[in-house]
C-alpha cells in the first residue's frame, strides 16, 4: 500500500474501476449516468454487481438514466479528516434516489448549494429534486454529482 506524503495529497482519492465496473466510470467520463439493467427482470441495480440483486440473473445491459432524482438524506461535513477536505469544508454529501426506480440510491455530492461555515444549509430539504452534473476529479475522471433543480 502506498503511503504518500500527507501534505502532497490535495485531492480525494480517485476511483479505480473494479472488474465489471469499467463501463460505469467510462460513461461518467462521457457525461452519461448508466446502471446495470437486468435482462431477465428489468430491474436496475447499483453499485455494479455481477448478478441481479433482485432475481439472480447474470445477463444485463447498461442503461442510461435521466440523471434526475430526489434527496433522501444528507450531511454537511464541516470537520475535515482528509488533507483535501481542509479547502473543501463545508461540503455536502447526499444520498440520491433516482427517479427510474424506488430504492435505487447512490452517494454523491450536492454542488452549488448554499451552505454556511456552521453547516447550515437552508435550501436543502428532504425529497428535493436534483439533477446530475459531471465534475472532473484532478485525476481526469469525471464524477457524477448533483445540483438542486
Amino acid at each position, binding site marked *: *500500500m*502506498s*503511503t*504518500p506524503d*500527507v501534505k502532497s*495529497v490535495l485531492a*480525494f*482519492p*480517485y*476511483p*479505480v*474501476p*473494479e472488474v465489471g*465496473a469499467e463501463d460505469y466510470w467510462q460513461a461518467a467520463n462521457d457525461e452519461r449516468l448508466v446502471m446495470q439493467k437486468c435482462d431477465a427482470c428489468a430491474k436496475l441495480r447499483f*453499485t455494479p*454487481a455481477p448478478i441481479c*440483486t433482485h432475481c439472480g440473473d447474470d445477463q444485463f445491459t447498461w442503461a442510461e438514466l435521466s440523471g434526475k432524482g430526489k434527496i*433522501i*438524506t*444528507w*450531511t*454537511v*461535513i*464541516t*470537520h475535515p*479528516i*482528509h*488533507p*483535501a*477536505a481542509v479547502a*473543501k469544508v463545508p*461540503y455536502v*454529501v447526499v*444520498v440520491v434516489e433516482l427517479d427510474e426506480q424506488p430504492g435505487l440510491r*447512490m*452517494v*454523491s*455530492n450536492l454542488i452549488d448549494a448554499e451552505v454556511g461555515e*456552521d*453547516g447550515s*444549509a437552508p435550501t436543502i430539504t*428532504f425529497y428535493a429534486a436534483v439533477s446530475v452534473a459531471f465534475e472532473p*476529479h484532478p*485525476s481526469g*475522471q469525471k*464524477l457524477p*454529482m448533483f445540483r438542486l433543480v
Partner: protein
Amino acid sequence: MQSIANKACIVGVGHTEYSKDSGRSELKLATEAIGTAIADAGLSPVDIDGITKYTMDNNDPIDIARNLGIPRLRFFGEVAYGGGGGPCGTILMAAMAVATGQAKAVVAFRAMNERSGRGTARFGQAPTDESVTGVKSYMSPYGLFSPAQMVALAARRHMHLYGTESKHFGEIAVACRHHANMNPDAMMYGRPMTIEDHQASRMIADPLHLLDCCLETDGGAAVVITTPDRARDLKHVPVHIASAGLGGGAWNHLHILKDVEAPHTESTVIADHLFGDAGITQADIDVLFVYDHFTPLVMMAIEDYGFCKRGEGKDFVGNGRLRWPDGELPLNTSGGNLSHGYMHGMQNNIEAVRQLRGTARCQVKDADFAFIAAGNAVPTSAMILRRDGA
C-alpha cells in the same frame, strides 16, 4: 432447534488500562489482558487450548500462545466485521468450540493501539491513498470517509422519519458518561457531561456532534470461556451464555451506510431467535449493553432488538431510563465505548460479567439477565448472559 443456549460460561475477565497511548506493543497489550483473564478464572495458560479473535485484530494467535505459555492450541478462529461480528461473535465461536469438545477453555480478546496509531490506524481519520476501488470508490471520491460521516446520513434520515432530535441521541451519551463518572478506570472519569454540553459540542458531520461519537483507545481486553461442568470448579461463580448469535444480510451493501427503512436489519436477524433461545423476553433484561460507536446507532439497535418499536427510541431513552441507579434499564454501566474506553465492545462484555457476578461499581440490584449487542450498521453479533442460578 439446537442452539448454543446454556452450553458455555464466561469464567474469567481481564483488561489493561485504557489510554490514549499505551506505550507498548499490541502483542504486549493482548498478553497482559489475556493473562489477567486467565488468572481471574483461576486457571493458568496451560489450561487454555483455544483462542478466538476479531479478524481485524493485528495479533496472531500463535504469537499469543508462545508468549503466554499456552503449549497446545487445539482451536483458533476469527470473526469478521470489526466491532460488529467481533464482540459477541468471538464468544459465540468460543462457546461452540467448548460445547462440542473441540477445546476445553478458550480466550476471546481484543487488543489495539487504535488511539496512538502504534499498529492500528485511527478510524476517525481518512486514509490518504491516491485511489480507491470497489465499494469505497462510490463514497471516498465524494469525501465520504469515516463511519461518523456515514452514520450522520442515517441519523438525519431517522430524525426525518420519526421526529427524533439530536437531544434524544444526547440522552445516550449522557447516560454513558454518567456511568463513566462512577468508574475510575474510565477514560472520561471526572468529566461530567450534561445534555447542554452535548448540544454545544462541535459538529463533526451534521447532525452528529463530537459527543455522539465514541472514544479512540489503546488497550486490551479478554474473557475466558469454558463449559458449565468445568466452570463449577473455578474461582468465580460462572456467568452463563443464555444465547448468542451473528447477523448479517444483503441490504447494507455499502457497508455502514445504513438503510434506516429496511424492514430487516443485521440486528433483527439475531433478535428473531436470541430471546427465544434464552427462553426470556426483552422485559426480562435487567441491564443493557449496546455497542456505542455512535449514539444514533444505539437508538436504532434498541429499536431493532425490540426493546421498543422503531421510531419510539426517542421516548424510550428519555426520563433517565438508561441511568443507574434509578433508571429502569441502565445502559453500558461502566461507560461504554463513548466514555469508558473504545475496546471494540469487549469492555462491555467484561462489565456485563461483573453485573452478573454482582461485583459491578454501578451494580444493578438483582440482575439476572444482561443483553449485549455488538456494533450495528455492519454485520453484527449479540448475546444474552444469565446469572448462575437465575
